[in-house]
């Protein structure tokens, strides 16, 4: 074996090892959560209210609450984020003002989530009198998800070749027709990826919902968007630290359900992406 081959072998080994190091924590977490939480999994756990000081029963209201919050977040952040990204990429002129907007969008994603929580509490709960409610919580989570949605949509739009736009415009299509038929279809996979990533984060966040929506214990389902709900991440926090003597498998079971929910969202996005790819024959 000569020197170059040996060096290559060493390089591959090192790279492979580093990759393994990166994946290892994820695998360990999954193993840990599944092995300890699997015991809690049952139809009853998913469909029952918590009972007896949350030491028995299930997580049904928290599960429903989180799903409602994700839907609410999506309802606000998806149209706002995608439309503003379209404006920034396709319509806005490149000047100091738009560059500042783009920069601040990127920087918004670095703001700690508890700050979003405080902002949501002041603006939606107190100032706009929404109270602690699904509406206030969804809006807060939506604002938190916007930067990632805008940034990934922007990148997906910019990745569509300029020539597609020229073809469409040169045939006499209007700007909006061009965006609608010649740009968006090719950007959808990228938009989906960013959106799901962002919504997964929203599903798992505790800080933004702490003051805006999450209920400690609420053994019934909400009747309107102005009601409070329980939510999985906050419920996990509560049963792990605030309530004594909750069986360990309940905490890990709650975590497992949250992970499964996020995985499910990712699977849906993968299926959708494959569907759009096939239709458009990239």
């Amino acid at each position, binding site marked *: 074996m000569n020197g170059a081959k040996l060096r290559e072998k060493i390089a591959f080994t090192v790279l492979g090892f580093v990759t393994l190091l990166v994946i290892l924590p994820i695998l360990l977490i999954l193993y840990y959560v599944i092995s300890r939480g699997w015991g809690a999994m049952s139809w009853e756990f998913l469909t029952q209210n918590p009972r007896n000081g949350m030491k028995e029963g299930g997580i049904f209201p928290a599960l429903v609450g989180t799903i409602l919050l994700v839907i609410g977040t999506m309802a606000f952040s998806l149209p706002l984020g995608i439309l503003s990204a379209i404006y920034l990429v396709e319509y806005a*002129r*490149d000047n100091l003002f738009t560059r500042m907007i783009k920069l601040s969008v990127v920087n918004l994603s670095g703001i700690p989530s508890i700050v979003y929580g405080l902002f949501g509490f002041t603006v939606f709960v107190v100032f706009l009198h929404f109270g602690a409610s699904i509406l206030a919580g969804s809006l807060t989570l939506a604002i938190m998800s916007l930067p990632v949605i805008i940034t990934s949509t922007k990148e997906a739009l910019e990745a569509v070749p300029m*020539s*597609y*736009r*020229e*073809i*469409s*415009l*040169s*045939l*006499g*299509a*209007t700007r909006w*027709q061009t965006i609608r*038929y*010649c740009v968006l279809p*090719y950007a959808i996979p990228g938009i989906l990826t960013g959106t799901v990533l962002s919504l997964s984060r929203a599903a798992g966040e505790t800080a933004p919902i702490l003051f805006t929506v999450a209920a400690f214990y609420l053994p019934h389902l909400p009747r309107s968007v102005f009601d409070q709900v329980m939510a999985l991440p906050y419920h996990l926090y509560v049963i792990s630290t605030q309530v004594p003597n909750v069986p360990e498998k309940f905490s890990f079971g709650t975590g497992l359900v949250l992970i499964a929910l996020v995985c499910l969202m990712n699977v849906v996005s993968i299926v959708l992406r494959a569907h759009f790819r096939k239709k*458009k*024959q*990239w």
Partner: protein
Amino acid sequence: MVEQDAIIKTLDLNCFYDELQVLRNINLEIYRNEILGIIGPANSGKTTFLRALNRLNSLNINYRQQGVIRFEGQDATQIPDSVLRRKIGIIFAMPQVLPITIYENVAYGPRVHGVKDGQRIDALVMESLQKAYLWDEVKDRLQTSATKLSGGQQQRLCIARTLAVEPDVILYDEPCSGLDPISTARVEDAMQQLSQQYTQILVTNNTKQAARVSHRTAFFLMGELVEVDNTQVLYTNPSDKRTDDYLTGKFG
């Protein structure tokens, strides 16, 4: 063959990118149903002139333009973008097809102009592909992806796509620069046939190509229109020495 009836007329056309002037005082008439060749070395403003005619230059925010372009006797600035670009189609240098089926590539134009009737679109697709000399090669695989066609076929598909919106003028921006000689000949054949019905402007780096297909030829140099004349006259007896130098290969 050529009627002396100008479909496009430019009056003192000046074009700038920021402070850089790329075209100076271009006064040029384009006659109905002629093939006008535009030759000249790189950076002489040929492509900018072409893209000024259907206003594609305005996509570049640094672009400015002075002077008048008349289309069918009307000041072109009075015509909306989508109407003007439909009337004046363009074929780009590199074959640029959308990554959708052959059929959908051709149908795209009519669809954005509001044609909804499926049979009418079918007929337009077939007619356009026939005019572009592509129909026989693709009629059995209209529903396959356009990206699977060869370069020459893709370029003829681009021509068909432009024809499908029923333009009056077709601009070609070095349409054969990426094609082999046989594909080039096919594209040139298509142009010859189309000249009965359409006005065509051909920008090319290949002086022989302009000599083969164009009725009149214009010579651009450093943003100026040096001269324009019947192709035969320009090639055999140019009135400007610079044209002669360029054609005989002294520069460029």
